[in-house]
């Protein structure tokens, strides 16, 4: 319970700060002041400024919004595809089960970076492309989890009872499987969000991320690496925000899992 609380408070704190950025600072995320570039953190610029004199605090707030938007959308897509595929792979006939299972293994081996590059060229750089690139292979984990969990549930007595009473598959799914799956789906989603934040940061690192003047947490941390020796805050603040964001979501996931195991 403690973990859920700490995680939730931390997450809300970051999100609310990100949403209220315009109230907290008079600067805009794309506003440049070349005279004050690379200034250290001060009361005027809470997190300092970058190489174009942009306020890092405001940029990080916008970065949180973009990173969250991308990861929430990607996890949503993962959830829909993964749940459908996982149920199909677990409940269909034996041949189709094997086929779908094999397909999962194959898809997990195709390099996602290749797919991401391909999509970027197809759709151009942008938030939409990143979301597609992250979810094109991201759903595999969800599908695997759903499949394994359904298989495990099928050996339980209540399932055997329901099946032998002649319950149809849709009925089984709606009234017997989904309520049980709900918690583990919640846990998986709260784990996919941090991993998509990280995956987005990786794409930014390779230059496949969002383009300037927009910035995600990943692209800002990436820009910060270059000047780490001279202006360390330009790396530490975005990277620290990524860390805290991932930490808060992991804490939530942990807490949820512990609660599930206790029941």
């Amino acid at each position: 319970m403690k973990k859920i609380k700490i995680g939730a408070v931390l997450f809300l704190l970051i999100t609310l700060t990100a949403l209220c950025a315009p109230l907290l600072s008079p600067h805009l995320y794309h506003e440049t002041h070349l005279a004050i570039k690379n200034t250290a953190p001060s009361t005027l610029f809470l997190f300092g400024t970058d190489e174009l004199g942009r306020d890092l605090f405001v940029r990080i707030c916008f970065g949180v919004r973009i990173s969250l938007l991308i990861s929430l959308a990607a996890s949503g897509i993962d959830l829909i595809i993964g749940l459908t595929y996982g149920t199909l792979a677990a409940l269909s006939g034996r041949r189709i089960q094997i086929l779908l299972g094999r397909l999962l293994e194959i898809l997990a081996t195709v390099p996602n970076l290749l797919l991401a590059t391909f999509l970027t060229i197809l759709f151009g750089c942008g938030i939409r492309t990143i979301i597609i690139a992250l979810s094109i292979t991201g759903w595999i984990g969800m599908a695997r989890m759903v499949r394994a969990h359904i298989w495990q549930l099928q050996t339980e007595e209540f399932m055997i009872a329901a099946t032998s009473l002649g319950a149809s598959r849709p009925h089984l799914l709606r009234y017997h499987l989904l309520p049980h799956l709900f918690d583990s789906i919640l846990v998986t989603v709260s784990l996919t969000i941090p991993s998509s934040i990280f995956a987005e940061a990786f794409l930014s690192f390779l230059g496949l991320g969002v383009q300037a003047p927009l910035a995600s947490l990943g692209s800002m941390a990436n820009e910060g690496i270059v000047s780490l020796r001279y202006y360390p805050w330009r790396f530490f603040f975005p990277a620290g925000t990524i860390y805290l964001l991932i930490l808060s979501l992991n804490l939530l996931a942990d807490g949820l899992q512990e609660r599930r195991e206790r029941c």
Partner: protein
Amino acid sequence: MLIHILKKIAILISSLWIVITITFFLVHALPGDPFTPELPLSEEVAAAMRRQHGLDQPVLVQYINYLKNLAQGELGPSMRYEGQTVQGIIASSFPISALLGMQALLIAVTAGISLGIVGTLRRGGWQEKGILLLTTLGISLPSAILAILLQYFFGFKWELLPIACWGSFAQTLLPSLSLAAIPTVSIARFFQSRLVEVLQQDYILIARSKGLSEMRTLIFHAMPNALLAVLTYLGPLIAHILMGSFIVEKVYAIPGLGQWFVSSISNNDYTVTMGLTLFYGALLMFSTFLFDLLQYWLDPRRS
């Protein structure tokens, strides 16, 4: 059993074939080819190069030729780097990534298992709380950020270890640590929760009622069972960690496979991308398979 293994191998090979087919058509669908990017080549030279590598033929013919070469164990020459073959690249870079990966794995397994044991032995004590705090904080730290932090503090600020490059043992320490961190905490957590579960079983009660010490019960009776579960986690991890991480290799300027893979994609170096994908796929599938077998052998109850 032998038939089971042979069947599994046949399935693995056909899976790899599908992976290589998908990858082949994906790389060829990317715009440009190895000779169009920023290279200062005249049109005639580029055309001659394309002809030499068979890129002027229809894609389907190229695909069949590639498979023919593959069947003879040839991964082909690099299209961007004259005189380099894909096999040569793997032979020179894989040992580097693999060495780094092995070190990381060694750290992760020893540290993870010891943390798990200490955490279980000292349940409720400050040791368990400390380990819990460490794993909770550690699991959220991406290896990329950790790599940069370690480099900044140990290499640059405190000047304790070399900042980058490859060659001496000291230079492998920071990158191995960055790679090992997340696997260490995952193994520690996973192992500890399994240990606690195993400790509730009846045969542990018997061991305790025989008067064995807690330490002895834990190490000789509970641990083997809990280790089995860690093996499932290790299978995919090994393939992943041996292939090298692009970011960690980039941060520490290590000439490993991860770098080659990423640069081959941006360079349109078709043969390198496909060869490395195939190599990784084979490594991943075989190590997962081997660990399944190992598990089956150690614990015949699982089918």
